């Protein structure tokens, strides 16, 4: 059987060049159905470009992406209704109310009972008090919750999150993480989470892919990464990778 048939997402020797410079340089990984994976890396590591290629928003220079057995971006319309994403760098129309925004996206995703689904998400993500407020008049935390609601509207099987708790206070960020975890468990969703926040990745992810300069530097469970680098926290592991300490250590040995 083709391995891509048993994986929710298969990334195979993926390359993206911008004017000859590699933003993503030959990476490969598979995400098992129902898994949650962290994509770690500094600025310019290639996380957002990787997620954009998985979504079909960016065409790879070489290699392939398969989502739920569908080739991206060529056959993306066969699978887009089964996936969704959230990013603080993408906004929703500020003049529309939360309810209007969600109902428009629900219709785009052909959600069966739009009002019931919005009510369900409003209860789950605590949106009820500002459902009829324009998106532009929400706080950063409220906007993030609305973006998450949009990302969960169609109960996606594959959920791509690009720094979902960026710019949130620790309490709100923790609250958002608990909702994400609950959603994944309830829906057996496959989640790929790009983040700078090591605590977030440590708490949520059962697997961590560390990227640097477009390449995968390491790919393992948080526990094994800590053991491999001899560190107490993922933040220390991240700094080791970012500063090339592991390679120096291996070269010395």
């Amino acid at each position, binding site marked *: 059987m083709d391995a891509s048939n048993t994986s929710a997402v298969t990334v195979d020797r993926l390359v*993206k060049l*911008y004017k000859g410079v590699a*933003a993503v340089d030959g990476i490969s990984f598979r995400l098992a159905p129902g898994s949650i994976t962290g994509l770690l890396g500094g600025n310019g590591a290639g996380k*957002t*470009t990787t997620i*954009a290629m998985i*979504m*079909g*928003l*960016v*065409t790879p220079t070489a290699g392939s992406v398969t989502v739920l057995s569908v080739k991206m*971006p060529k*056959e993306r*319309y*066969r699978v*887009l*209704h089964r996936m*969704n*994403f959230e*990013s603080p*760098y*993408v*906004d*929703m*129309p*500020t*003049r*529309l109310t939360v309810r*209007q925004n969600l*109902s*428009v*996206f629900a*219709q*785009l*995703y*052909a959600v069966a009972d739009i009002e019931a689904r919005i009510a369900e998400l409003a209860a789950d993500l605590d949106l009820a008090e500002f459902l009829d407020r*324009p998106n532009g008049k929400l706080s950063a935390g409220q906007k993030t919750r609305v973006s998450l609601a*949009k990302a969960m509207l169609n109960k996606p099987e594959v959920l791509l999150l690009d720094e979902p708790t960026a710019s949130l206070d620790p309490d709100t960020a923790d609250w958002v993480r608990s909702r994400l975890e609950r959603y994944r468990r309830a829906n057996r969703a496959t989640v790929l989470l790009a983040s700078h926040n090591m605590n977030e990745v440590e708490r949520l992810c059962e697997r961590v892919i560390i990227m640097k300069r477009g390449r995968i530097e390491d790919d393992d469970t948080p526990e094994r990464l800590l053991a491999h680098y001899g560190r107490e926290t993922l933040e220390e592991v991240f700094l080791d990778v970012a500063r090339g300490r592991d390679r120096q250590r291996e070269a010395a040995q």
Partner: protein
Amino acid sequence: MTSIDSGFEFSLNRVAAMVRRYWYLLRSSWPRILDLIYWPTVQMLMWGFLQMYVAQNAGFFARAGGVFIGSVLLWDILFRGQLGFSISFLEEMWSRNLANIMMSPLRPVEFISALMIMSVVRLAIGMVPVTLLAVAFFGFNLWSLGFALAAFFANLMMTGWSVGIFVSGLLLRNGMGAESLAWTIMFLFLPLTCVYYPVTVLPGWLQYVAWSLPPTYVFEGMRALLIEHVFRADLMIQALAFNVVLFAAASFAFLKLLQSARVHGTLLQAGE
């Protein structure tokens, strides 16, 4: 709803969702609605009074009643048709919502269909009151043109949509750096399509350019109707033929520019 192939599926439901989104936006702001009406009104009043003045001093203009007002109203259909399309598209870029739209199941053809519907809605909000003011101020009733008006309107809208589709492709590919084109590109058509004067005024070589643009046939047709009281169906058919070619070329260019935007990663960038 038909499903020939996943890439060519067309959903009226998704088109309705987008139209609803733009309608919410439009009705949320009275300055936006006022903006649709005030400039066409100013234009119509200015050209109407100018026409009254020259009609009192020149026999030809006295016979050609309504030509200037007719010209300005039809020009506004062309200009506002394109602008209504482009502004709805720009709303997605201004609100940084484009990636949400492009990652949704919405097909490009559905997106374009919603923008076309909204351009008609915006035009109707702006132009219907202005045509009624033209009756009140100058006794010029655009609606009395009947079938001819429908032919003029259809051809001008089709040109406006074609230009709007092409500009949207440029915005996808080049980002907000191409925004000024959305506001100004139609003015290239103003001298070339002979809105206020006959094609024969142009130098010989430029007349070939003018006759390759569909609106030229509409403005010539309008003058034939108002001055000679003849409806030139032949001009409307020629305009339609050129419009079909222009619309197909613009749609092809849009798809190519969208493809190029995916290659260059510009769909994620809403800024310059």
